[in-house]
């Protein structure tokens, strides 16, 4: 390249500006990233939603014992006849569960701690629960396609006719991230 050439001189100056421009673009992108990085744009309500769902199950007439004389619902006392009824899943679906939206799936297990007997699991949105549990158990808890699971255990009483026995109610819930 001839240094006394006008065009060559300008080209050299332009060439020197290229790294500066690239650095400028980098600074803009980084500044923009930092601005957005420190601004919260979402609220994580996973724990609240799963806590609310499991609490609602305990306070649900579909599963809990309602005293026939007072009409009072006894939260934490599971009515075994209701739990073993064929339409228990439908009752829970109609009472709880985000309408037609696929937001939460659950499995409810009941074990009699005195006899060791495990009753049949009750599902809320069974297919959805099984599908998302696979994702959550595989560890894909982050990102749009991920899912998170939560398991809550409650020591309960199992009311069967006149008997009252100790039991363990386990509510396993799974929620997709989006």
């Amino acid at each position, binding site marked *: 390249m001839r240094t*006394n050439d*006008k065009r060559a*001189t*300008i080209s050299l*100056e332009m060439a020197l*500006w290229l790294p*500066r421009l690239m650095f*400028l673009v980098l*600074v*803009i992108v980084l*500044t*923009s990233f930092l*601005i*957005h990085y420190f*601004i*919260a*744009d*979402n*609220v994580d*309500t996973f724990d*609240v*939603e799963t806590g*609310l*769902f499991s*609490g*609602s199950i305990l*306070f*649900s007439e579909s599963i809990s014992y309602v005293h026939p004389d007072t009409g*009072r*619902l006894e*939260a934490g006392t599971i009515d075994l006849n209701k739990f073993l009824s064929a339409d228990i899943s439908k009752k829970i679906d*109609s*009472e*709880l*569960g*985000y*309408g*037609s*939206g696929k*937001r*939460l799936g659950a499995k409810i297990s009941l074990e009699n701690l005195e006899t060791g007997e495990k009753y049949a699991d009750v599902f809320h949105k069974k297919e959805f629960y099984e599908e998302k549990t696979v994702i959550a158990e595989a560890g894909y808890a982050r990102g749009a396609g991920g899912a998170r699971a939560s398991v809550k255990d409650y020591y309960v009483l199992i009311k069967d006719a006149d008997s009252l026995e100790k039991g363990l109610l386990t509510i396993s819930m799974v929620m997709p991230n989006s």
Partner: protein
Amino acid sequence: MSGKHFRNSKKATLVTAKSMLALFGLVMVVVVYLMLASQVNGIKNDTTFEQIYISRDIALLTDAIKSSPSDITYKYSNKISSRFDYTFGKDNLDLNFEGNVESFPYMAKGAESGTRLLYPQVIVFEKKDGMFSVKNENK
């Protein structure tokens, strides 16, 4: 050196090129500053986070009240977020602010569908005899 000779000289070419590049740099600084200022200003005026927060807070509160085994009345002070248009739909709570809508689903069933509250300062949630209702209590 006369003006004609200077304009055609190598020195003149360098001075012109450097001036143009300095000017370009100055323009770039102004453009970048305006761009970032506009971005920050946009974030300051953005209500999306507030809408997400309030829609979740109220939808989850609705779930908790509906799940109550007995009658309950709850007054939700809403002075800070009274600029939104609230629609309690069948499955979702919609918060509308100038056409920007944020939704959050309910869990519990039994809401009266289609209740719309415009700019409520106090929202009253009530569950009575198994029926759930929500109303505006602006004074």
